[in-house]
């Protein structure tokens, strides 16, 4: 019962937050200077034609009227048309969102994997060479800009060693038939092994770049909390009782250290799902991050709105799931 009311409350928060984001984004995009029509009109025109285009787009109407019109379209699933691509925003996002989500999922899985493993081992063997190496990789991951790391990774693995495929986006060759929009999943579903290999190969470098930068803070958090837990009385008691070290770490220490790490994972995953502009730029990855930035440059309101609101929803959803997860794992959050 208590769980149900908690969930209902969270759901209301969710809806209110999304509405808030809608209003703020709408006002901010419109209040900022820059009208998309001028850029797209070019020099071979006259003021009357420009004014007509502004009227046609409804950009001359008062802000509240524009907002109501936007909401009206929104409830019908119409996110507007991008002036920069001439396509509907729904179809634009339909091709870019899977690119971002696939890369984000790949990166987060790899990041969580290495962060937990390395973080735990470094906490268990605090004075080893391994722990020092983990320190170094951790500092590198949190301090190096993604843009720089991406460039170096390409320089080393593609340009110099030539063991990675060229940085030309999601796939070399023919993409698999579209089912989910995730190339790897679609390739599996259609048993297109060439496309599977090709899309996995393209995921590697950008995925590893992001896994290093997002995994580093996770690893440091995991290590820190693990060190704390390992020094706590109940672990010492367990050790005194003769519980084997491996079992002590995996069964007793890890679950308690993991909890704060899950919050970190949620934050990082939310960040990745918003599209990582610089990595997308360097790897020619056709994701939402670069799409959003290009749209902002062109003052193309509809796609900017859509990306911001979508990212906000994804963030809120990831947090919701994390909190619900905590509700079940952590008895303290149920009180």
């Amino acid at each position, binding site marked *: 019962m208590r769980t149900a009311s908690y969930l209902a409350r969270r759901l209301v928060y969710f809806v209110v937050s999304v509405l808030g984001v809608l209003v703020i984004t709408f006002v901010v995009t419109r209040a900022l*200077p*820059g*009208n*998309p*029509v*001028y*850029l*797209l*009109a*070019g*020099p*071979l*025109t*006259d*003021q009357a*034609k*420009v004014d*007509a*285009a502004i009227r046609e787009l409804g950009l001359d109407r008062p802000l509240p009227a524009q907002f109501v019109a936007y909401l009206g379209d929104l409830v019908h699933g119409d996110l507007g048309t991008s002036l920069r*691509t*001439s*396509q509907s925003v729904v179809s634009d996002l339909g*091709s*870019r969102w899977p690119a971002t989500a696939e890369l984000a999922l790949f990166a987060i899985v790899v990041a969580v994997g290495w962060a937990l493993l390395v973080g735990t081992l470094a906490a268990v063997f605090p004075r080893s060479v391994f722990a020092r190496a983990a320190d170094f990789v951790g500092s590198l991951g949190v301090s190096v800009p993604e843009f720089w790391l991406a460039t170096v990774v*390409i*320089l080393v693995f*593609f*340009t110099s060693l*030539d*063991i*990675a*495929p*060229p*940085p*030309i*986006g*999601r796939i*070399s*060759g*023919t*993409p698999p038939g579209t089912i989910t929009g995730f190339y790897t999943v679609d390739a599996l579903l259609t048993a297109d092994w*060439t496309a599977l*290999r*090709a899309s*996995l*190969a393209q995921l*590697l470098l950008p995925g590893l770049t992001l896994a290093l930068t997002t995994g580093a803070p996770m690893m440091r958090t995991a290590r820190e909390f693990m060190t704390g837990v390992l020094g706590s009385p109940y672990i010492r008691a367990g050790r005194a009782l003769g519980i084997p070290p491996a079992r002590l770490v995996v069964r007793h220490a890890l679950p308690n250290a993991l909890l704060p790490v899950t919050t970190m994972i949620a934050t990082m995953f939310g960040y990745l799902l918003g599209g990582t502009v610089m990595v997308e*730029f*360097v*790897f*020619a990855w*056709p994701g939402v991050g*670069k*799409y959003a930035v*290009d749209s*902002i*440059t*062109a*003052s*193309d309101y509809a796609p900017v709105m859509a990306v911001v609101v979508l990212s906000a929803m994804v963030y809120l959803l990831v947090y919701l799931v994390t909190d619900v997860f905590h509700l079940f794992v952590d008895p303290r959050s149920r009180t």
Partner: protein
Amino acid sequence: MRLRSLAGGVAVCAALALAACSADSDPPASATDSVLTVAVPDDIQTLDPMYANFARAHNALQQIYDTPVNLETQDRGNGQLVGTPDKLKGSAFESWERSADGLTYTVKIRQGMTFHDGSPVTAEDVVYSFDRALNTKGGANWLLTQIAFVTKPPVVVDASTITLTADKPSALAIQALYMDGLAILDQDEVKSHATTDDPWAEKWLAKNAGNGSGPYKLTSWTPDQEVVFEAFDGYWAGAPAIKKIVWKIVPSAAQRLALLRSGDVDIAESLPPDQLASLKGADGVTVLSAASQNVSIVGMNNGRAPLSDKALRQGISYAVDYDRILSQVYQGEAERLYGPIPKGAATSLGDTIGYKQDVEKAKQLVGGSGYDGATVKIAFDNSKQLHEQIAVLLKSQLDAVGVTTELEPLTSAVFSERKAKKDLDMYVDESLAWINDPDYILSLTFQCEVYGNYADYCNQTVDDAIAKGWAMEADDPVRVALFENAQRALVDDAPWLFLAQPNYRMAMSSAVQGFVVRQNEVPFYYDLSLKG
């Protein structure tokens, strides 16, 4: 075959239809011969020819659609192939004849020409295309009504003849028709997508490649990723030599360069000067560098204080270190621009006019002007790195002669809007005239009250030359004198800083043959072939 071991790279290579592996020795020559891979920086903005305003859209449309006329390729003798509007050849218009009063053109429509689906290009299709341009609000409308002075669609005389009538004579009427805005559309197809709200099918044509009659068909488009064109073997002038064009959309210039070096692409578009310089001596890579009529300028707001003061504008024109901009920003790959008409365009006075740096004279002029020390803002589009470099150099040079300046970086949309509203003091800009004629150039940028006159300039001598020039033949000595006078007047008024004519440059594999530098600087893949 190089090792591409990550996740079975060898299979990746095979799956690529050999396009990305063309630098490797293994693939059979016949297959590599027919695929050209190009790294481009961005995606297509619109596929509606009448609304195309950015490089990639022009680039795609020029392959898909025929235009009434096209540029004849001329060999400059130094290995450079160029195409300029003063030498035209018929395309959909096989030939044309001008009436004695200069108003009516009797045009023979090329027979036997077909669209990509095999249906014939008819006189009605041509008329429909003009009609659509006249009834939509894009650039093609402007070309027809303001350059060719055509406001009524042509009339069909018989199956192979139409007449095109202008309201008043224009020396550039036919030249204006080589631009992709005047693409020949399949009227049946376009009409089938028209609705009552959208009678010219603008929504459909913006995102769909129509049934053109150009040398290539757009066969696949993955947004922000890849565009594929395949040869149209039924092209009226003969099947294209290269059977497939693949665009890889690679936003990072550094990666486009890396892909060209590794042989994964054959052409890398839009590389900045420093990266082109790094290709010097690179194996198997050619960097084409050709004189261009693209002008690099800084516009000054003639319509509001403080730059409405002519002496101040002249002073600023003397303050600029032009040589430093040529060497530092363009790394020497540019010529100096001295006036409004670039070298290479008819009547250009070249270096016989213009300003050279003279700091003393600059200080004198600034001091003697009505300038009160107000801050002058130098605006630039912050997505354009070279423009930022120019603004930075300019700032220090103007500060040195007593003009207080401030940099004003703006996003593309804000820059365009404020420029069009004449709400900038100084703006760093570029402009490439698609017709190399003084009347075209001046009417676009310096005619009083015209939309593209962002400097808000107005001078009766210039307007007179523009008005009288239209009816005269290009080589009429009276016309030449009119435009020479206009150039002198413009230099004296100094509405812009005339900086440079940066060379047109393109980095490509040495296998790419026959690249023609066209006036509009849009590559036409039909010209190209690949050496085995």
